[in-house]
């Protein structure tokens, strides 16, 4: 007992070893070897992570001195933490193991430490991350098989996985932030993985532009996050996670934070919480900073699945969940809820108007992350974590499925992402790719919230919490969930049903003239190799059955018990409504899209025919990119102009005028001097000149003379001190 907990540090270490080995050794010259090495190391990490989770579930706790205590049932898990209202039951539980080493002295009493901490939430996250990462590694072996930079790809995603796991396990917010930044770097590198790719359309965003955009956008949130950490450190003197003395969730400290009022009228806790939440906004692409995530789809599809659907973006949610005690004592929760709910609806609306299969999923991800954030905002901590886990599985599944679809489509329409990812060029794929279709259906039903699937249970729990806490939020989320079902049905209908249109794809407005794609026409889309379908099947199983870990019935709150938090209450009304919403959304989608694009890929979208204006707005993503370009971009340009003007017109002018004035004064002075003061001054000047001439000889330019003089001065001073002063 306890071996897995003791050696949990191996979990991030194994992918890190993979990264180091692939990067530093000649194994990088062999594509297959590097891919399989990374995958096998991930399998190892998965085994340890699952073992860790099992041990945590078994209640094993290891104290600092190494004594192992195994109790099957924690006593305090049963008793409700506090009767603060629905869902506000989060309470920091003692972790199962904490192991730290000191690595840098800090100004305060507590030095900075590095180490890992494992509690149920971490264990669940570890399991989720490792399982999805392993599946995606395996998927990538097939998906990236023909890429010349395969070794680099595996090195990057290994590094990313290591950073993500390290972040999850971090015992310390500083370490958390470091891993967070490494993830940001990996995200940048992987979005820009095909950095040499160019498009015919000059307005279409290229991978390298997307990478820069993602990096800079998230940087805004990260900087604010770091400021929040600095503030927290100033206030608390520590960044250790934990509720003990000298740790950030110490009740007295939280109390002090909540009562300290800053100059702008909010409490320190609120300020810190808002700043930390900025990190979440950046990383999880919440409303004002959401623009980078859809463009991040320019990266390889496994990257989209791993980083931009399952793990990294949910790290933002995890951040808020991790620092939830601070949020609890602050007034920031309404902000969180508002932003989350708004993003959920807003992104779902945009998703309706997209044609790129990956972008639809990307906006869906935004929307679902909005769900989680909103759930946190209304205090549904367990619901948020639950949805985070289930969403990771089925969204990774959907992305991998879309990757499989794209992989199949490329056989027909060529390696052009614009063509291969356009759902209008697909259709009827269920005949060609049965395994992908079935897995995709599982993911679709889970995401749409079809009763019985994983997404239904988790989303229902969020909705139930929202219904109890804030009706407005509930309404917004319900709308978003309806839209979710609708756009997913749209996608399914267009992609997998109907007739295959890929043999005559849409004409690209900027397509290259000489295509060498014509010889692909003969091919039909094909099913993907086993390395790609196996992860799909595994993840599909999760998508179907992952919900059972936390059914809203008494006695089935396994996850809540596991976390040691209060379980959500069963609300049959809400459950019925959400089930009806899901089924209604699917029916609506089926009605609208059952005959869409029946004739050709050039046909207009049915929704566009019904409401052309609205659809255009949705398709153009509410013109947010244009808005940012028009506001932030223009503001920056204007600011630059202003500074140029200031520099040229004001500062330079002042300098020039000062010069002129001085010159004028000088002329006046010259007259006075020449007429009045010349003789006496001449004498003085001559005297000075002679004196200077004499003095000048001491300045021989020879260093030795200067040193001799310096020492002579020292001797003189010393003699004065020794013989005269004393």
């Amino acid at each position, binding site marked *: 007992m306890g071996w897995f907990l*003791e050696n949990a*540090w191996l979990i991030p270490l194994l992918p890190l070893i993979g990264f180091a080995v692939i990067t*530093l*050794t*000649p194994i990088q010259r062999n594509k297959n070897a590097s891919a399989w090495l990374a995958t096998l190391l991930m399998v190892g990490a998965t085994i340890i992570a699952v073992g860790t989770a099992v041990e945590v579930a078994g209640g094993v706790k290891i104290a600092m001195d*190494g004594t192992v205590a195994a109790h099957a049932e924690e006593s305090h898990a049963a008793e409700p933490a506090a009767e603060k209202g629905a869902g506000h039951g989060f309470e920091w539980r003692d972790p199962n193991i904490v*192991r*730290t*080493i*000191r690595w840098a002295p800090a100004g305060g009493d507590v030095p900075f430490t590095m180490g890992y901490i494992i509690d149920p939430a971490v264990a669940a996250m570890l399991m989720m991350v490792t399982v999805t990462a392993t599946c995606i590694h395996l998927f990538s072996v097939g998906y990236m098989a023909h890429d010349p930079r395969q070794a680099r790809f595996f090195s990057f995603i290994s590094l990313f996985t290591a950073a993500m796991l390290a972040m999850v396990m971090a015992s310390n917010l500083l370490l958390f932030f470091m891993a967070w930044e490494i993830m940001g770097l990996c995200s940048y590198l992987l979005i820009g993985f095909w950095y040499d790719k160019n498009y015919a359309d000059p307005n279409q965003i290229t991978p390298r532009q997307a990478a820069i955009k993602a990096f800079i956008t998230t940087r805004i949130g990260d900087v604010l996050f770091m400021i929040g950490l600095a503030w927290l450190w100033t206030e608390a003197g520590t960044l250790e996670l934990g509720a003990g003395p000298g740790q950030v969730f110490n009740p007295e400290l939280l109390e002090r934070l909540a009562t300290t009022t800053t100059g702008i009228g909010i409490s320190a806790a609120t300020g810190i919480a808002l700043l930390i939440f900025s990190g979440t906004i950046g990383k999880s692409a919440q409303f004002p900073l959401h623009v980078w995530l859809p463009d991040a789809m320019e990266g390889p599809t496994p990257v989209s699945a791993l980083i931009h659907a399952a793990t990294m973006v949910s790290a933002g949610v995890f951040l808020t969940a991790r620092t939830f005690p601070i949020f609890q004592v602050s007034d920031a929760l309404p902000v969180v809820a508002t932003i989350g709910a708004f993003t959920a609806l807003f992104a779902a609306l945009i998703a309706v108007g997209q044609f790129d299969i990956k972008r639809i999923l990307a906006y869906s991800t935004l929307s679902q992350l909005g769900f989680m954030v909103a759930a946190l905002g209304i205090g549904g901590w367990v619901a948020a974590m639950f949805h985070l886990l289930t969403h990771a599985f089925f969204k990774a599944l959907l992305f991998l499925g879309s990757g499989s679809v794209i992989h199949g489509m490329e056989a027909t329409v060529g390696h052009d992402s614009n063509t291969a990812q356009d759902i209008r060029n697909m259709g009827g794929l269920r005949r060609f790719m049965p395994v992908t279709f079935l897995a995709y259906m599982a993911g679709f039903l889970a995401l749409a919230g079809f009763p019985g699937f994983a997404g239904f249970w988790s989303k229902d729990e969020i909705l139930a919490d929202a219904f109890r806490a804030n009706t407005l939020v509930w309404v917004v989320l319900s709308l978003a969930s309806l839209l979710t079902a609708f756009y997913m049905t749209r996608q399914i209908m267009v992609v997998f049903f109907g007739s295959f249109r890929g043999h005559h794809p849409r004409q690209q407005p900027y397509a290259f003239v000489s295509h060498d794609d014509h010889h692909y026409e003969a091919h039909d889309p094909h099913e993907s190799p086993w390395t790609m379908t196996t992860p799909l099947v595994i993840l599909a199983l999760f998508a179907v059955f992952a919900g059972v870990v936390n059914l809203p019935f008494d006695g089935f709150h396994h996850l809540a018990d596991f976390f040691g938090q209060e379980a959500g209450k069963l609300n049959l009304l809400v459950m019925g409504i959400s089930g009806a919403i899901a089924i209604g959304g699917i029916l609506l989608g089926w009605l609208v899209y059952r005959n869409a694009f029946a004739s050709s890929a050039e046909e207009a979208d049915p929704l566009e025919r019904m409401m052309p204006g609205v659809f255009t707005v949705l398709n153009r993503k509410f013109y947010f990119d244009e808005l940012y370009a028009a506001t932030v971009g223009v503001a920056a340009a204007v600011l630059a102009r202003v500074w140029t003007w200031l520099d040229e017109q004001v500062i330079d002018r002042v300098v020039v005028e000062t010069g002129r004035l001085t010159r004028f004064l000088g002329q006046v002075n010259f007259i006075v001097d020449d007429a009045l003061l010349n003789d006496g001054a001449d004498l003085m000047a001559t005297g000075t000149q002679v004196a200077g001439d004499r003095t000048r000889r001491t300045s021989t330019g020879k260093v030795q003379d200067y040193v001799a003089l310096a020492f002579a001065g020292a001797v003189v001073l010393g003699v004065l001190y020794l013989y005269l002063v004393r």
Partner: protein
Amino acid sequence: MTDILRSWIGGALPDWVIVLIAYLLVTTIVLFYAVGNFIMMVWAERRVVARMQDRLGPNRVGPAGLLQPIADAVKMFTKEDIVPRSADQWVHLLAPIVSLAPVAMMLAVIPWGRGWEPIDLNVALLYIVAVSAVSGVGLMMAGWGSNNKFALLGAMRAVAQLVSYEIPAVTALLTVVILAGGMSLLELPYMQAGVPLMGATILCGDAAGCSPSLYTTVTSFPGSPGEPVQALDLGLGWWVFTPVGLLGFIVFFIAALAEGERTPFDIPEADSEIVAGYMTEYSGMKFATFYIAQYILNFALSALAATAFLGGWQGPGVAALANMGGPWVHVAAALSAFYLLAKIWVLFFVMIWLRGAFPRLRVDQLMDFAWKLLLPLALVNIVSASLMVGLTQWTSAQWGGLLSLDGFAPWQRQLIAILVTAIINIAAAYWILSINQRPTQEEWIEEELVVAS
């Protein structure tokens, strides 16, 4: 030695006279030992190299040519001592002395046998390194004082080589310092008791029933420092058998070849290029002094390599004989001295062997080799050595609680450490060798074509 003299002479002389006599006696013995070895080395080198070239070598003077070095010495003594007119007289005169003296001083701290140690210096390793660095001054003096461009070139080459290869040599010796936890040379052979690879980590299970001829008392062994225990001892726990020691030994031995100006690195006296390097203007006894200095340096470096990595005087049977007590201790000492001498001669044979096999390097190759190959390997080896010490000797408290090996038996910890260091060293060696590979033909052809055009 002092004690023996005291017991012989007793109170007849004041104590400091006895100490002085003892010192002089030991110095004389050691120097005679070294010079005797020098003579045999000269003979052996000529004979062995001759055999490697399918010749017989000198075999006319004395039985099997054994008296050939004596004849050479007589010739050297009787040759005219020529000092070039434009040479710097004093510098020219002092140079051979300055290059021989430090070499002779190196012999002072080497343990020649079990209990046969001239001086116990607690910074002995550093002392040897420091003193051997002094001979560079002698070479520089020889090169400059001769007022000859070949001599100056040779001296510059010699000193550059000496300084460059000192770094890998010292770095390789640092692994020994890390393993031993100190810089004293006397402790090293005692620490290399035990069995190959595992060292003195196989403990006697039953304290009463362990044969003193097979088991020896070890005080500092991994796991429980300070408590004397009985460990299996065949006198073969040499560090060269562990991955760390092996890599360190290889690096140190190669660097020692360069420091002793042995053949692949005999660039300073490359006779086909710069006549005889810094020795160009020397003849007679001064030349012989340089010659002696060079061979004794080889001898001392071989002794150092043997002591640091090959167990020194340690060998099968020494501990058993010493455990028998009484006069057997002296037998053990003699046997141990023989072991050390045998190791030195094996190393010297390898030097001759290399001379028979390899051509001379170019200067740039020499520097590349030191800085791009030996030094990285030695640095990696330091990491390995630290890991080895940590894995075999640290408690979990010293690891910050991250790695707990407290419950393991010493031999298990040793095994883990050997596996880990072997992996690190092999991977590093492979990596460093692969990045140092010569460019393929296409690459350099391209480069040269660019240069040519």
